[in-house]
C-alpha cells in the first residue's frame, strides 16, 4: 500500500513539476509579437487556423514572407493560402516546417522560396534558430528540426528553451502573461508588410549568368528531402526565387537549385532576370524595401504575375 502511495506521489509531483515548467517556459520565452516581424504570432497563429483550410502553402525565409500577401493572392486566384516562414530560415527548417504544416493542412500546392540555398554555413545563429523553433509545439518533428538545425551541445537550449530564457524574468511584460497570440490567428496569414521604399537599390543584369554553384551538401540534401516529401504526399511542388536583385554569385546558387529541380522534374522559376522584371514592371526605385526584399507595392506587382505560373 505504501509503495503504491509513494509511486503515485512521485508521479503526481513530477506532473505538477512538468506543468509548472511548461507554464514557466511559455511565460519566459522571448516573443516576437509586436510590429511587422511578429514571427511568434505568425507561426503560433497558423496552429489556430481551421484544419484543411488552405489550398496553397508558402514556405521559406524573409524573401518568402514579404513577397506574397495571401489576401492579394486570393484576389488573383480565389485560392486560400498561408505564408509559413521565418527570418533567414534555412532549408532544413523549411523542410520541417512543411512536415509541420501538413499535419493539419492538405493543400493542393506547396510553394518553396529557395533563397537560403546561398547559405554556406551548416548552422544558423541562435536568434534565427530560436525564432523558427521556439513557437513550434513539441513533437517528434520539432525534435528532428532541432537536431537538424542546432549543433551538438546546444540542443538542450531548444528542447527546454527555459534554459535559454530563464533570466528573462526581470523583463517580463503584461503581454508575456496574457499571450493573446496563443488564441488568435494572424490577419496577414504570415505575410510581412514592408511599406518603406529604399532609394539605394542596385540592380545588375544576371540574366545571362548560366554558370551554376552547387549549394552545401546539407542544402542539397534538404532540397531533395523537400522534393521527396512532396512526392510522398503526392502534392504539387513549385520552387521559386523571389525578385531580390540577385548578385552574380547568388544567381549561380539559384542556377544550382534549378539543376536539382530539373534533375528531379520539379518546377523552378527564378524571377531575377530582366525578362521577368520587365514583364512584372518592377521598378527598383519604387518596389523594394531594401536591396533584397520587395515592399508592398513590389509585392502587388509580383503576386499577379507569380499567380499565373502557379495556377496555369
Amino acid at each position, binding site marked *: 500500500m505504501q509503495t503504491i502511495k509513494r509511486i503515485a506521489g512521485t508521479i503526481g509531483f513530477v506532473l505538477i513539476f512538468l506543468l*509548472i515548467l511548461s507554464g*514557466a517556459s511559455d511565460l519566459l520565452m522571448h516573443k516576437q509579437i509586436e510590429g511587422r516581424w511578429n514571427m511568434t504570432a505568425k507561426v503560433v497563429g497558423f496552429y489556430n487556423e481551421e484544419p484543411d483550410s488552405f489550398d496553397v502553402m508558402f514556405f521559406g525565409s524573409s524573401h518568402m514572407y514579404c513577397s506574397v500577401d495571401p489576401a492579394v493572392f486570393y484576389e488573383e486566384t480565389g485560392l486560400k493560402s498561408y505564408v509559413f516562414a521565418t*527570418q533567414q530560415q534555412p532549408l532544413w527548417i523549411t523542410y520541417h516546417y512543411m512536415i509541420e504544416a501538413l499535419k493539419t493542412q492538405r493543400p493542393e500546392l506547396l510553394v518553396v522560396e529557395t533563397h537560403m540555398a546561398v547559405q554556406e554555413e551548416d548552422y544558423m545563429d541562435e*536568434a534565427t534558430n530560436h525564432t523558427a523553433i521556439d513557437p513550434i509545439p513539441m513533437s517528434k518533428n520539432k525534435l528532428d528540426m532541432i537536431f537538424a538545425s542546432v549543433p551538438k551541445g546546444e540542443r538542450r537550449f531548444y528542447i527546454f528553451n*527555459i534554459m535559454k530564457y*530563464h*533570466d528573462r524574468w*526581470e*523583463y517580463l511584460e503584461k503581454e508575456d502573461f496574457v499571450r493573446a497570440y496563443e488564441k488568435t490567428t494572424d490577419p496577414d496569414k504570415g505575410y510581412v508588410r514592408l511599406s518603406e521604399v529604399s532609394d539605394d537599390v542596385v540592380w545588375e543584369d544576371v540574366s545571362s549568368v548560366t554558370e551554376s554553384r552547387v549549394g552545401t551538401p546539407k542544402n542539397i540534401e534538404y532540397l531533395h528531402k523537400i522534393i521527396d516529401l512532396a512526392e510522398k504526399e503526392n502534392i504539387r511542388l513549385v520552387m521559386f526565387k523571389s525578385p531580390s536583385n540577385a548578385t552574380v554569385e547568388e544567381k549561380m546558387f539559384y542556377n544550382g537549385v534549378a539543376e536539382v529541380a530539373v534533375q528531379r522534374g520539379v518546377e523552378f522559376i527564378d524571377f531575377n532576370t530582366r525578362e521577368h522584371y520587365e514583364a512584372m514592371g518592377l521598378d527598383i526605385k519604387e518596389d523594394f524595401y531594401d536591396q533584397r526584399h520587395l515592399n508592398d507595392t513590389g509585392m502587388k506587382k509580383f503576386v499577379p504575375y507569380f499567380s499565373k505560373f502557379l495556377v496555369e
Partner: protein
Amino acid sequence: MLFNSFSYLIFFPIVVLMYFAIPYKARYLWLLAASYYFYMAWNPKYALLMALSTVITYMSGLLIGRETRLTSTIEADSRTYRYAVFRKKLWVFLSMVSNLSILFLFKYFDFFIDNVNRVLGHLGMELLNPTFDVILPVGISFYTFQALSYTMDVYRGEIYVEKNLFKYALFVSLFPQLVAGPIERSKNLLVQINRRHTFDYERVKNGLLLMLWGFFLKLVIADRVAVIVNTVYNGYTNYHGLILAVATLFFGIQIYCDFYAYSLIAKGSAQVMGFRLMDNFKQPYFSRSIGEFWHRWHISLSTWFRDYLYIPLGGNRKSTLRKYINVMIVFLVSGLWHGANWTFIIWGFLHGSFQVIGQITRPLKVRITDLLGIDREKTSYKLGQMLITYLLANFAWIFFRAPGFTAAKGIIKNMFSVWNPWVFTDGSFYNLGLSVGSFWVGIISILILMGVSVAQYRGIRIRERFAKQGLIFRWTVTLGLIFSIILFGIYGPGYNANEFIYFQF
C-alpha cells in the same frame, strides 16, 4: 563532468537506476565503470594517472599487510622482525614518495621551476627551460590524499587490507566525491563498498533534497556573486574602498557556497545510492576563532592534515614552541595543497599565524577582559569573536582569490585608500555585472542561507523537521526551490533581447 552540468542531470539518474536494478555482486563494478566515465569526461588520459595511484596504494596495502601478518607470528626482538618492520616502513615510504611525486610533477613542477629560475636569475646563472606542458588533472590533490590515507591506515592497522583491486579502485574513484571531496577515509568509505545498499525511499528523497540545496547554493548564490567578484578582482585597479571590501566578502560567500554546494551534492548523490559521506562544512563563518574555523571548514582536509601531518610531527605533545611550528608547517603545506602559487602559501601562512598569535595572546586577552570586567560568556562577546574571525578569514581570502601577490597588495592598498560609504546608495553595485534584480536575488538568497545556517548552528535538524511537515508544505517548498534554481540560477547561453532585433531580414 561537473555536477552543475546537463550531462550530470542525465548521467546520475541512469547510474542510480542501473545501480538498483542490477544484482548486488555486480554493483561495485557498475559504480567503478560509472566513476571512471565521470572522470574521463574531463580528460580520458588522466584516468590512467588515477589508475596508477590506485594500483600503487593498493599494492602498498597488500605488501604492508603481508609484513604485518609476518610480525604477528615472530618474536618482536628477532632480526626477521626488525627487517619486516623496516620493509613495512619502506612500503609506506615508497607509496608516499611515488604518489607525491606524481602530484608534484603535475601540480607543482612549473611553480618549482619558476622559483628556481627566479633564484638563478638573481645569481646571474642560466635559466632552466624544461618542457613539461600539462594541464592540472582534475581532482588529483583530492584522490591522491584519499589514496595515501589508505596506505597509512593499513600501516597503522586501522583498516583491513582490501584484496579486491576493483573494490579498492572504487574507494579511490567513487564519483560523487572524486574530484572535490570530501576526502574520505578508508575507515568510513571502503567498508561501505562491501555493504548492501537497498533502495530506501526516505533515504533517496533525503539525498535528492540535499543535492537540491547544493544546486541552489552553487547556481543561485556562488555563480551569481562570482560575477561581481570577477568584475572587481579582475579590474581591481579601477575599484577602491568599500567596493573592494564588499567584493572580498562576496568572494568569501562565493567560495563557501561553491565548495559547500559541491560537498552537499556529493553527499546527496552518495546518499541516494546508500553511501554516507562525511560532513565537510559546519557553518564555518560562525566560528569564534580561526582554530575553530578549521574545525568547520573543509573538515575532511583539516582532519587529514591533523592525522597524517600534525600528529606525526608531534602535534601538541612536545613543547609549546614546537606546537606553534607544527601549526605553521601544517598551514603552509595546506596553502600549497590549495594551489601552486605563492598567494596560496601566504594564505596558509596567514591562517597559521592567526592561530599562533591567538594562542600566544590568549593569556593577555583573558587578563584584559577580566580587568575590564567583560563577561566572556555574553552573547555580545561571542558575536564579537565571530565577527573578528569572519573578517580575518575574509582578509586571508584576498590572497586566495587575487591573481598574484602584486595584485593582492594592490587590492589591499586600494581597499584602504578611501572611505566611500556612498557606494551603498549611489547604485555602484549595480554596475558590477549584475542587473538590479539579479543583485537583489543574490542578497535575498544569501539571507536565506544565513537563516538556514543559524538554525543549523543552533542544532535544528532542518531536513528532519521538514520531513514531518504536511504534503502541501513540503511540495511547495521543494518546487519553490527547484524553480528558484531554474529561474534564478546562473547557467545557459544567456538571454539578450538585442540578438533578436532584425531590420534586414
